[in-house]
């Protein structure tokens, strides 16, 4: 009996050490990023483990002025507009598909959600030509329009599955009061769906904020670059001034980490709904 207990305690201890080691292997590189971003480049080369002797906030100023400030603004702008548009357009589409009884709604829903099956990589070149044809290549719109389109299938699905289970009664009452379908959407359905709309917007914002490939190909002008592409530019600009680059990386990572920690619940609920990565 005693022996079995010892063994169980030992297993527990080993598992706990394993979990902690894994946590360290994730946290230490991030910690190293922050600490090293406050060192001088010389300190970094002398000893990669050491803490900075004096905190070099100037690295942050250098990185910010080397373009990170501009990229930041672009990322916030593109993410805000794309997220708002994708969420709004998806809510509009999900509403009749879940609340109206017309024929063909399943077909339309399948058509929209079916977009999830098509990887953006397949369409990289044809989208590039399409955006050139539309005259919006190398503008903010070259990112915003494809981002909105590619967020619609998942967002429609997420909102549709929530709208579907809203109670009918309130809606019926509003109809009796002479409200039309547009009024019902704004005054009944959307106010009742705030949590799922927040989830949908958060998931889109995360994907758009981090998007790399479209931003790389559809925009040429460095003044329009978002953070993910801008950091690549910063890397070649600062050359071997690693600590300045690390300051840029830290500034880009911190907002999204904070956003995640603050909104973890909504984030995870949405992921669980769809089982879709990215």
């Amino acid at each position: 009996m005693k022996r079995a207990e010892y063994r169980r305690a030992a297993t527990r201890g080993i598992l706990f050490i394993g979990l902690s080691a894994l946590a360290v292997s994730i946290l230490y590189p991030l910690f190293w990023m922050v600490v090293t971003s406050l060192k001088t480049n010389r300190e970094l080369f002398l000893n990669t483990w050491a803490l900075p002797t004096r905190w070099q906030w100037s690295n942050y100023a250098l990185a910010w002025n080397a373009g990170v400030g501009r990229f930041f603004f672009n990322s916030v702008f593109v993410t805000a507009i794309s997220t708002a548009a994708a969420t709004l357009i998806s809510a509009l589409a999900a509403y009749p598909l879940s609340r109206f009884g017309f024929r063909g709604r399943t077909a339309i829903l399948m058509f929209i959600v079916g977009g999830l099956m098509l990887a953006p990589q397949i369409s990289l070149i044809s989208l590039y030509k399409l955006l050139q044809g539309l005259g919006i290549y190398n503008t903010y719109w070259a990112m915003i329009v494809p981002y909105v389109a590619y967020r619609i299938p998942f967002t429609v699905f997420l909102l549709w599955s929530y709208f579907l289970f809203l109670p009918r009664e309130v809606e019926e009452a509003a109809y009796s009061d002479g409200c039309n379908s547009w009024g019902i959407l704004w005054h009944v359905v959307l106010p009742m769906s705030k949590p799922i709309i927040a989830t949908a917007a958060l998931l889109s914002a995360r994907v758009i904020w981090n998007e790399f490939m479209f931003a790389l190909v559809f925009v040429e002008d460095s003044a329009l670059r978002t953070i993910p592409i801008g950091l690549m530019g910063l890397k070649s600009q600062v050359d071997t001034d690693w600590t300045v680059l690390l300051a840029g990386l830290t500034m880009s990572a911190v907002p999204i980490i904070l956003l995640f920690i603050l909104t973890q619940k909504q984030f995870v609920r949405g992921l669980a709904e769809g089982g879709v990565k990215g």
Partner: protein
Amino acid sequence: MNRERSLRTALPYVLPGALLVLVFIYLPVVLSFAFSLYRWSSFSVNKVYVGFRYYGRLLSDPIFYTALQNNALYAVISIVFQVGAGLILAAILEEKVFRKYQPFFRTVYFVPSVISFTVIGLLWQMLYNPDIGILNAALRGIGLGRFALGWLGDSRLAIYAVIAVSQWQYTGYIMMLFLVAMQKIPPELYEAAMIDGANRVQSFRHVTVPQVKAMIVVNMAITVIGAFKVFDEVYIMTGGGPGRSTEVLATYLYRSAFRNDEMGFANAIGCVIFLMTFALSILQLRLSRVGRIE
């Protein structure tokens, strides 16, 4: 159902979304296939019809096979680490003794997946760096100096070094999906297993795994699809090098289109990505909640 029964009332709501999806998701896929049948460059006015010649060229192209092999390697390693280890990690965190610490561990493990790959890729480039990186410094520190290698600079190792970073980033993400699925398992099932005399490992095998089977398949599909779409990781960390050793389909597509200006050939690679991901995506959608639309 509602009083609104006509398609005419629904159409104005559905139209903007449906049109955007049609024009920017479906149409480009059709165009990609059409474009793959022509020889053309970015600025050329004329396209020359070549039929399926580019597909033939792919079949005898060694770099295409390198890319395909790297994508497959990505898929296999990701299944082992993200799905395999993710499943086990989730099960451990769901154990009663670890419940207390679960919120901390799960948040930490998940964090890398919300950060942009540019940040992670450039950070790991430095961590792998033989001069300033902590990886080699750590290996030397614990007396394993002979394993201190030039990770990303070595054409045999580089692809593994890149894939390792993806595992570092995404295992916690897949683990989180498993955790959500496991929390829906009725506790009575575990109690019944315990009464039958099952130990922890046995109840994992006979209760947990069968109960999250659908999630296992969905997660496998997600990781394999992800493996065949991979672009950012390779483009950012190695750009396909050293030589062409880390090329994957998407980076080869990018290089063919925007470096070599062979648009038709690049589109043929795009169609291969379509073939590799489409069937799996249908499977994923059918098994996840998205598939239960009707």
